[in-house]
């Protein structure tokens, strides 16, 4: 399920990015940046202008020209002009996608570690609480995966299938966590 989720996420991401590629370019997203080193008594300067690529040279960008006419050529020879473009929409969408994935994961994590054990405790009631004491004493997330798995196997409709897949995933992760963090068997 985790793998499927990841695949879904990446596909969504792909679709979003593909959509971005075709979008019209924002006019703010190009710049021509000229860096001019110190020359005679003029200190170094950076010029920044929103022009097209063919106009990206010192003569078009450096305004006002700090040096008098005869020196312009010498001054401009030292300047380095770079044409750069970016896609601000891509950046915006990427960061939003990233933050929303992160947020969802965090919420789910909080749900698994904090909310679910409380819910489970309340649902089980007091009578069973005594019986399954050692079960609840384990505060690891997913600690109840085993019994839910056993219960959900008996019924079979779509919702239960989802639940079953989820529990199976939980069991897998639990197993992985044991082997990595407790037993130090793999990936030390």
């Amino acid at each position: 399920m985790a793998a499927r989720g990841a695949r879904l996420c990446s596909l969504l991401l792909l679709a979003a990015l593909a959509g971005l590629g075709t979008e019209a370019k924002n006019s703010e997203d190009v710049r021509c940046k000229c860096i001019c080193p110190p020359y005679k008594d003029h200190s170094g300067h950076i010029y920044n202008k929103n022009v097209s690529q063919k106009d990206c040279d010192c003569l078009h960008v450096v305004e006002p020209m700090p040096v008098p006419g005869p020196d312009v050529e010498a001054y401009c020879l030292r300047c380095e002009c770079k044409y750069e473009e970016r896609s601000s929409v891509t950046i915006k969408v990427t960061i939003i996608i990233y933050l929303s994935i992160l947020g969802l994961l965090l919420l789910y994590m909080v749900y698994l570690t904090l909310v679910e054990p409380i819910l489970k405790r309340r649902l089980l009631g007091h009578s069973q609480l005594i019986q399954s004491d050692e079960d609840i004493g384990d505060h690891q997330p997913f600690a109840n995966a085993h019994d839910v798995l056993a219960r959900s196997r008996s019924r079979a409709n779509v919702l239960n299938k989802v639940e079953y897949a989820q529990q199976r995933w939980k069991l897998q992760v639990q197993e992985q966590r044991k082997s990595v963090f407790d037993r130090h068997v793999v990936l030390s």
Partner: protein
Amino acid sequence: MESEQLFHRGYYRNSYNSITSASSDEELLDGAGVIMDFQTSEDDNLLDGDASIDEGIECMLSKFVDDTKLTGAVDSPEGWDTIQKELDKLWKKTCAASKAGDRGDSFLPHSGETPPAVLHPALGSQDRKDANLLEQVQQRDTKMITELEHLSYEEKLRGLGTHYTMTNGGNINSSTHLLDLLDEPIPGVGTYDDFHTIDWVREKCKDRERHRRINSKKKESAWEMTKSLYDAWSGWLVVTLTGLASGALAGLIDIAADWMTDLKEGICLSALWFNHEQCCWGSNETTFEERDKCPQWKTWAELIIGQAEGPGSYIMNYIMYIFWALSFAFLAVSLVKVFAPYACGSGIPEVLSAASAAGVSVAFGAPIGGVLFSLEEVSYYFPLKTLWRSFFAALVAAFVLRSINPFGNSRLVLFYVEYHTPWYLFELLPFILLGVFGGLWGAFFIRANIAWCRRRKSTKFGKYPVLEVIIVAAITAVIAFPNPYTRLNTSELIKELFTDCGPLESSSLCDYRNDMNASKIVDDIPDRPAGTGVYSAIWQLCLALIFKIIMTVFTFGIKVPSGLFIPSMAIGAIAGRIVGIAVEQLAYYHHDWFIFKEWCEVGADCITPGLYAMVGAAACLGGVTRMTVSLVVIVFELTGGLEYIVPLMAAVMTSKWVGDAFGREGIYEAHIRLNGYPFLDAKEEFTHTTLAADVMRPRRSDPPLAVLTQDNMTVEDIENLINETSYNGFPVIMSKESQRLVGFALRRDLTIAIESARKKQEGIVGSSRVCFAQHTPSLPAESPRPLKLRSILDMSPFTVTDHTPMEIVVDIFRKLGLRQCLVTHNGRLLGIITKKDILRHMAQTANQDPASIMFN
């Protein structure tokens, strides 16, 4: 020679035993986190479906002949009886079938003939009779093959099915019917647990089988045709999707990582999603001093206490830096712990999966280097087809990343160098010195890191992974902030160290004393004396170097996915830059020395410190990973410095030699050994003259091998055997007396098969006979139904004779990725060699204590 023959056998193995055995617990996977199934389709088989069917059937029949031969070769009277009985039975049944109509005439033309007589062997004339018998059997089968050639595929299969059902000794409706076996595999058989070696040979066989099946149906309908086309393309489809996904994810990571790095510093008020540079995209701050400032970008101090300068704001920024570093670390470690515990394996999974090509391709912007990397590090079972597919995946990934353009410089990497200044011969000396440094660093790092990881693994300290991450993050943040070179994002640092000092650079690394009135052209700046800024930068760099060297030892192997490439490169780049500046200043002040005289005149630009940083980075990375070819390719792809291949090669080679002098293992091998994965490294040579008989188990003093017999064990016997032993597979022999090998059954398969049989089949109880043979032995009438497990039997396990040199055995294991191999003598089963036996043996020959190798 021998391995070729064996491979040939493997090629035909299991042709009529489609549900092959499943994985064992025997081997831990050599660390494949992401396993791409690059074997999914055999596209070259698309057109020759019928040919392969014939081949399959021929193979089945010859296999049958082989089996019969084996039986016939039994030199005991019982054996002769068995074969006589079997032949008679077969003969009667085929006759009956052909008489009953149902294509009988075309199928078996000799239905009216008398059954072939097989004489009981008299002593002395056994050989001749043996030959005689075999000839008869073979003749009959050859005849059958020729007959079968005229039939259509279905008829062939049906014919074969009948044939086999008959030989199974009655009970035509039993589950051993060939077609039933093809269609309904037992669920769970043939899957792998986490961290288990994939049996590539078996997977290939299975895939061929599946492919044959799809191809045979191809002509039936358009839907089947589409299915077969899809099958042929699925491998490439998977690779394409991998590439697309890796490219897109890399873009996401690049952008998000940039943003989060700058989040530690401040935030863009006008648009929260921009990092510092993007925030100041259109700013008009024109002076050099103000170049990094713009009104939209606010540091945390400005936002919280409202002042941008002074000690108060410094402390505020410091606190916020530590706060963000700690919260990122906590976020990372808790996400890893809750959702993906395997993600903490720093670096090792990425080494051994074929998808690493795409990964390295986008992570470092080096598509070809990525492919070479997987070729150099993925050490076994790497067929050319996989190479091409990795290449394609890398291409797609790089293309996607380029179209996202995360760095805004139309390049795949952040540190692309743009200088093309030449280098001179005398510079090889400092380059080689950098290589020595890289090798020493590599050796030190591997030792220290392994020692630390061992400590973490074996002592109490390892019980607190989350705390460890938080502590490391806190220490890093506290020490890193005051030094501008460690406060920086490491990639940015590398970029800055790689860049040459043009007149436009503002960093203190480029604070040379300039001759303002020089009217030279920008591109060719002569060597200049260093200014105070450079000297203070060198001090800071030295401190940064020490800090990085120490911290990297602790961060690699921590329980969050932390990398190795970038920190190693940073260390090398820092050292290289320092050496570069030193050589530059030396050349400037002593340009009359004989080595500098020829090239470094006054006013000439002869030393490029950025190049030294590049070479140093390559050397350090080489010292740690012990890569050579792929490393040089990665570095020159990374930097675009095509002219600098020779310096890179010299440094990387030196660093490998120096590193190897202190210990032959690279960091990945060392971690593989630390974790006790049974991994046969293709780079190690095996030069001892031992034979297979010296390595195999059981040894002379050991109890005999745990084996199964093909038809006289009960379900209970097998369950007891499984419970008492921890072996992961059991050889199946004909009988305890003859010891002749029938096949190999894996523990996991046995368990699953018996369990599912007990649940689903009626009449299977503890005292049921388990039968691996083609026909069930005659049982008393009241005994329970036998359980047929032929479908999980691997009928063609790899065997070697006891006199095979170990050199060849090791080669077979490496090339084919075997997990175990049986040892025979005159056709009798003697013992078994597993990959772990080989590793223990190798440790022994290298004078190590074989018990010191831990296997899980």
